[in-house]
């Protein structure tokens, strides 16, 4: 179990870094997919079975594929221009480290040390999550459906090619 965690953590981090650092956006997208799958694995380790599946179906199966399609659509027309702004990268990395350093006590020590997967009762099975979604969170759930619908319409309206415009 521990080994699996370290393996997944390694994949998560390295693919995350790859997303940021790879030159080609397509490679970034593939790295992101790998990252998401690894996170899904972590979810499964945390007994969040439904969430792991949702992660694969929604994130890996839909969002990243959407990104890929957008890349394929646009890739032939994108020209890369090289304008380096290294100071930004340095600032970002410094800030990021600072962030981690600042939060480290919170992440590591301040919270009670509970072993993260010792509670079997709360396995996030489809049935359990479904029960919660349709009782306590039913209003939010409906709202989320509405949000998706709105986003769908918005996306269609935005991306629709209008006459008089190339695409």
């Amino acid at each position, binding site marked *: 179990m521990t080994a699996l965690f370290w393996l997944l953590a390694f994949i998560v981090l390295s693919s995350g870094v790859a997303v940021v650092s790879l030159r080609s956006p397509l490679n970034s997208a593939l790295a992101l997919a790998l990252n998401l799958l690894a996170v899904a694995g972590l979810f499964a380790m945390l007994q969040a079975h439904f969430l792991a599946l949702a992660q694969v179906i929604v994130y890996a199966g839909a969002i990243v594929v959407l990104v890929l399609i957008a890349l394929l659509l646009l890739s032939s027309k994108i020209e890369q221009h090289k304008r380096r*702004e290294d100071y*930004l990268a340095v*600032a*970002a990395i410094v*800030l*990021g480290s*600072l*962030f981690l350093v*600042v*939060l480290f*006590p*919170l992440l590591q020590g301040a919270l009670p040390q509970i072993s993260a997967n010792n509670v079997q009762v709360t396995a996030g099975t489809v049935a359990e999550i479904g029960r919660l979604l349709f009782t306590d969170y039913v209003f939010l759930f409906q709202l989320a459906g509405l949000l998706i619908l709105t986003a769908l319409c918005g996306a269609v309206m935005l991306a629709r090619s209008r006459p008089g415009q190339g695409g």
Partner: protein
Amino acid sequence: MSVSYSILWPVVFFPLLGALFAYLVGLKHKQLAGWIATGASGAALFYVAGLTLLLPHGRAFEQRLFEWLAVGDLQAALTLRFDALGAVMSLVVAGVGTLIHLYAIGYMAGDPAAGRFFAYLNLFLAAMLLLVSAANLPVLFIGWEGVALCSYLLIGFWFKKEEFAGAANKAFIVNRIGDACFLLGIFLLYLNFGTLDFSELRLLIERHPELSALYGWVGICLFIGASGKSAQIPLFVWLPDAMAAPTPVSALIHAATMVTAGVYMMVRLNYLYALAPLAMLVVLVVAVLTAFLAATIALAQDDIKKVLAYSTISQLGFMFMAAAAGAYWVAVFHIITHAFFKACLFLSAGSVMHCGGHEQNMRKMGGLWRKMPLTAMSFAVAGLSLAGMAPLAGYYSKHACFLALQSGAFETWGRLAELALLLAWLTAFVTALYIARAFSLIFLGPAQGNLTAHEPPWKMNGAVLTLAVLSVFSGYFLALPHALQHYLRPLFSGPYFNFDPGGVLEALFVHSWPGLLGVLVGLSLYLKAPWLIERIKERFPFTARLFRGKYYVDEIYALLIVRPLERLSVGLWRFVDQGLIDGTVNGGARLVDALALVVSRVQSGQVRHYALFVFSAAVLLAAFYMVF
């Protein structure tokens, strides 16, 4: 006293829904919008009728919809109450409203904005139904304002004509003046009793009869509000101008429903007025004067709708007269009969205009009797009813008014009441005179000009004829001792005016003399002896001019109020607004502009920089919370 059920919301909800659908559907299907609106209004009518049948005598249904205002101690819930008075009023509003909707389908056929029109009509109906089913003053005030808003929208319906838009503005502004006083009255009541619920107010007021002076002031304030809505002196000027609206609107708003809101309010608060003789006196004087003056103005108007408008004002005076005499139910009675015959008059006038090439000047009509017999007959019947001819509806209610003045007012005010009665009789005579004049100018006599007229479509005629039948028979049946006066009895405490209509023959030959006389004189004058009128005009040029010029009230207002206000506004605009306020605002803007020039350097247009800023802020915040 009242039973709580959740059955009242559809009363208001039907027309509201109708308004929504009529507007949406009306965007595409003009004709359908009318039918939807009529259906919604009819549904409301049936619902109200059902409720009325269910309502036990002397009880009320009540429904608390939701908490509307809760400020400090003021708890104004949106509560509806449906009692006998509400039932009668809603029936009239919804009934006449439905007929007018039906009529309007024919009248508005071909108008490009018919959907909007019907939406407004339904909205108006909803507001009026809310007004009459309100359980407390704030809710009544919502309906009150809603009615004003809808009348504004409808008067200005053809807003492309500047004149019409001006009329709409006038109606709205004049109503606001009244509403200010109305609100003042409400505030006074709340200040002293801490509640605005009608039944609670009734209990409290009847427990404290010693606060008569307060009631007087409250009553006067409320009456000024009512005089705005119900077009009494001094706020009646908007009503004649409001004839810019399409004729069905005139019928609905300015004859049958909206203008009765003031009277309704007074009847609703009868317990207050009963303890405020001062207010009653004011009401009586204003009402009698209004009735008489409006009737005389109507005598000299050429525009068919203006005649009817002034007639409405005059008849509203009768209603207030009855209320001021303490015979509140008679006021309601006159509201009902007046709604029928005045709506009928308006609608037949509308038919004349609609089918006669949109001519409104009566002098250019004439001889239409042959071309549109049904319309002429309806107009004649309703006109006779208005004139107070027995045994038509108008006779009964008007006769009841006279009797109420005689019996109620004499005890209180003596000679003054005598004068009032005299003026009232005179008014009744003039009423008959001007309606006879209108009828003879329009339908009888030689044809002036070349009007091509024909009978309107069945939708219009159906509504007109129904109203004509109602304005014939409704009076007799409502006047029966066990009808209206028994039904409304539980609403009023104190001495009650009992009305015995008596026999028909007696009514015809003894009591309806002012109407009979007026009609006879009018017909003979205008048909047989027009020269006599000219002579009279020559003899009394000043009076004739005064009548024709509507006593120059508009001009006086313009001189006394509007002009000075305008000058003050211009001054304020020049010096305060442009100089002081704009100067401050622009100076502030310039300051910000100068500062922004410096700060805007940060705004590089690069999302990445912004992200960096955001994240730095996040790190700072995190550090802050971790440290402290």
